[in-house]
C-alpha cells in the first residue's frame, strides 16, 4: 500500500506534470498580458477598494484566474467580516 502511494506521488511529480503546471501559469500571463507582479498589484488594489466600503477577512481571500476554452475569468472569493452591531 505504501509502495503504491509512493509510486503515485512519484508519478505526479514527473517532468510532464511540471511542464503542464508551468505552462498553465505562463499562458495566463501571456494571454492576459499581465505579469505575476501586476496580478498581485491588481489583487491588492481590488481589496483596498472593497475595504473602503465593507470589512473583509484578508486571510481567507481567494482571487484566481479560471480558464474555459480560450476564455479566462477572474474569480474573486472575498469573505466579509461580520459587521459589528452598533445598537
Amino acid at each position, binding site marked *: 500500500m505504501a509502495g503504491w502511494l509512493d509510486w503515485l506521488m512519484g*508519478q505526479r511529480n*514527473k*517532468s*510532464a*506534470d511540471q*511542464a*503542464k503546471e*508551468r*505552462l*498553465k501559469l*505562463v*499562458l495566463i500571463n*501571456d*494571454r492576459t498580458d499581465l505579469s505575476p507582479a501586476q496580478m498581485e498589484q491588481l489583487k491588492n488594489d481590488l481589496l483596498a477598494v472593497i475595504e473602503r466600503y465593507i470589512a473583509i477577512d484578508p486571510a481567507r481571500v481567494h482571487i484566481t484566474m479560471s*480558464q474555459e*476554452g*480560450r476564455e479566462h475569468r477572474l474569480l474573486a472569493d472575498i469573505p466579509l467580516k461580520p459587521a459589528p452591531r452598533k445598537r
Partner: protein
Amino acid sequence: MTASVITFTSGKGGVGKTTTTANVAVALALLGKKVVCIDGDIGLRNLDLVLGLENRIVYDVVDVVEGRCRLRQAMIRDKRLPELYLIPAAQTRDKNALSPSDMVRLCDELRPEFDFICIDSPAGIERGFRNAIAPADQVVVVTNPEVSAVRDADRVVGLVEAEEKGPARLILNRVNPAMVKRNEMLSPEDVLELLAIDLLGIVPEDENVIISTNRGQPIALNGKTRAGEAFHNIARRLNGENVPLMKLDDRQDFFSKLARMMRSGGS
C-alpha cells in the same frame, strides 16, 4: 475548382513546419488532389530542399510579384506526383519584399486551378507570418510537446484569432509515445487542454523523417512509416474525411480516448 488555402505556422522555429507542409502537400497530391505549395520563408527558403526540388528553381515568388516572370514560370512541377507544384521563396531578399496583399493576390490567381494551396510560414510573428496567414482559409499550427513550442503556439493561436483567421487547428509533431507513457513528455491531451483548440493530427517522432529528408524524398511518398502514415491521415482529414487517430504502439487505450476527444470537437 476553387482551392482551399492552408497556412502552416508555429511561432517557434524548428518544430517541423516545413517538413509538415511538404508531407501534407505530397499526401494530398497522392489523394489525387491538385496542390501547390508556396514557401513563405523569404531569405531562408527550405521547402524546395525538403521536397527534393532544389535543383530546379529558376524563378521565385518575389520574381512573380515584381513582374519578372509569369506565375507559371515560377511553378516547379514535382515529377514524382501527378499534380504537385512548388513556388519557391526568394533566397537573397528579405521578408519585406512581399506584402500580405501580394500574397492574397497571388493566391486569388492560383485558386481557380487548384484544390489546395499549402503555405509554409516562416517562424516568428512579424511580416513573414502576416504574409503567410493573409490569404489563408484555414490555419494549422504545428508544435512539439515541449514548453517553449507550446507557449509560442499559444501566442500564434491568439494572433490567428485576432486576425479573424481562426479557429486554428493543431498538429502535434514529434510525439515520443514511450516518453509520454513514462510521464516525461506532455501528452497530446495535456497540450490540447492547454491550447484549447481542435486537433488535426499527431505525428510520432520517427527517425525515418530525417533519413527521407536527407534524400530529398518526403516521407509521405512511401507511406510505410509511422510518420508517413500520420501525414496521410492528416491529408485525408483536410480533405474532409473522418479518419481516427492511429494507434501508437502500446498506447492504445490512451489514443482511443483521444480519438473520442477529436470526434467531439477536441475539447
